[in-house]
């Protein structure tokens, strides 16, 4: 710990030019710097631990859990007990297994949405910001077009078009109306980066558009892309839950936390565990992802030196 802190201090001092050159620490890559700052971010690290725990539990626990999610042979609305820690649902299914399976699907959908919308958003935004002119106005108009309809309404209608509520359909429709924010951010950043000398230099040395965008621009935007992709996961978890809650998202046999809540929220007064179980898992997932995103933002921000939990 101590030597890390002293290294950090000496590095700051070097930037100020107060240390002799022989005291220069070994040069570090941006990745290492970011990683170290992130590892020192207490809240973000705690959130990562909780999130990893949730992910591991949702994947591994079902293998050992005593009840299958399909088994509906139990008593309806059994009280929470050693056998059923959170009780059973109306149709006599074990609540814990329902939550585990819902968590799997919610995370799967959210990750897919985040990856798809980040790829689409970054490619479109970088093209628009670098090429300008016609490409820029075309991409900007398309972005405007997708922004005039709320994501949830568009996703509800599109899910109906595809006719099934499979998890990947829900992920696809959420992603197709979820890339606009990342595209806008990437576009703005690509625009300012493409004014810099290193881009001119790359162009002068004969690099093509594709190479400039993906070898020079995108690596320089990796901070904001990572942060926004992380936050997009949290948004997608909530969007999917909302869509499934109004009954237009994931359909059986697939499920999700939103669907589990929809099936059980009427029991809030009489059997609170049935509502608060999935609810707390859902909030924990999106809260920890938001904290991780916040920690990443601080870690990538070169202006921020002070570490704060």
């Amino acid at each position: 710990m101590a030597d890390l802190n002293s290294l950090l201090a000496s590095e700051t001092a070097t930037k100020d030019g107060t240390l002799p050159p022989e005291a220069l620490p070994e040069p570090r890559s941006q990745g290492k710097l970011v990683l170290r700052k992130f590892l020192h971010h207490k809240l973000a690290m705690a959130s990562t631990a909780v999130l990893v725990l949730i992910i591991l539990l949702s994947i591994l626990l079902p293998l050992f859990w005593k009840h299958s999610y399909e088994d509906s042979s139990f008593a309806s609305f059994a009280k929470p007990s050693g056998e059923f820690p959170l009780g059973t649902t109306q149709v006599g299914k074990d609540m814990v297994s329902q939550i585990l399976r819902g968590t799997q699907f919610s995370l799967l959908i959210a990750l897919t949405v985040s990856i798809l919308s980040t790829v689409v958003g970054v490619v479109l935004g970088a093209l628009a910001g670098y090429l300008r002119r016609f490409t820029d106005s075309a991409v900007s108009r398309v972005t405007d077009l997708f922004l005039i309809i709320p994501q949830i309404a568009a996703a509800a209608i599109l899910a109906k078009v595809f006719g099934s509520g499979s998890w990947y359909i829900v992920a696809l429709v959420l992603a197709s109306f979820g890339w606009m924010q990342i595209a806008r951010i990437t576009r703005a950043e690509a625009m300012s980066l493409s004014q810099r000398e290193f881009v001119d230099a790359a162009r002068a040395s004969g690099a093509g558009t594709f190479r400039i965008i993906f070898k020079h621009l995108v690596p320089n935007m990796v901070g904001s892309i990572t942060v926004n992709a992380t936050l997009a996961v949290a948004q997608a978890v909530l969007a999917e839950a909302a869509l499934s809650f109004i009954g237009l998202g994931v359909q059986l046999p697939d499920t999700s936390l939103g669907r589990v809540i929809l099936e059980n929220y009427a029991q809030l007064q009489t059997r609170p565990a049935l509502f608060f179980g999935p609810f707390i898992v859902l909030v924990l997932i999106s809260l920890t992802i938001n904290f991780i995103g916040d920690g990443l933002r601080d870690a990538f921000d070169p202006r921020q030196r002070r570490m704060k939990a």
Partner: protein
Amino acid sequence: MNLVLYVLRRLAISVPVLLIGTFLCFVMVANTGDPLGEIRSKPGTNLQAIADLEHKLGLDQSVFARYFTWLGHFLSGDWGISIAQGNALQPVAPKVMAAFKVTLELVLAASVLALFFGVLVGVLAAVKQYSLWDYLATTLAFLMFSMPIFCIAIVLKGYAIRLNGWVRQLGLADVLGDPWLRTTSPESLSATGVGDALAKYVGAFLLPTLSIMAITFAAYSRFQRASMLEVLSADYVRTARAKGVSNSRVIWRHAFRNALIPVMTLFSVNFGATVTGAIITETVFNWHGMGTLLVEAVNKNDPQVLMGWLVLIAVSVVVANLVADLLYGILDPRIRVG
């Protein structure tokens, strides 16, 4: 005059976006399934009647032809007919408009309140940076931000009975009405006198508005805090303090007004989130607004209601963006609109 021209130009720019948008929506809606499926599947329905209805709805034409027919009718005020109630056909326009009015009230109330409280909490958190208050506000904002709206709505609705019990115990039931907090649609608000009307209005709107406010409130408070912190460290604020300007005057007169400018950009972004919040909240509280209308129209394959719904929402998003830009121009004299 400049302003009028600017508004007209902005609206003119959004016309092609709206036209293409409505066409894409139309194609999307046309593929949601057979709107007459339910009627068709009923035994003993007259085949000729179905064919007539098909013709009346234009379902026997191509998508392009149908779109232009629909557009022509729509622009002349005929929004088509709803088939949600089976054979009982209803005109779309009054149906969608009634729902829109309900949702608009909710959205406006929630937007204004969220902006007000978000900005207030953000300013106080920035002024007292790293205080207990700041940490509380930050925690609250993160919690709200990570909470699904419908869960807030469910919890508020679930505990409304208890809240109403407290109102009764405090002896306020006579003044505020019993039960005061409504958890269902307030369609039958009959009041005697202004005070009673206010109490009933607040009782009906409080819980749904709180649910919708939660998320945008969090965004506003975080953004306002960041922007206020930036302004408070600016040179002109130090100058003002050095001149001996009182603390509250520095904060509210010098810093606050400039810190408010970037927050206004959030307003248009948040509008979509607020509409989404309203859609979900209405489902929980059984309000007959745009949310319940959307769910019904999607479930029943009611294409012309869906189109009316989408156009109305799209136009309001365009208008909300315009209003945000105009406010931006008013708040920041460096940006001259026009």
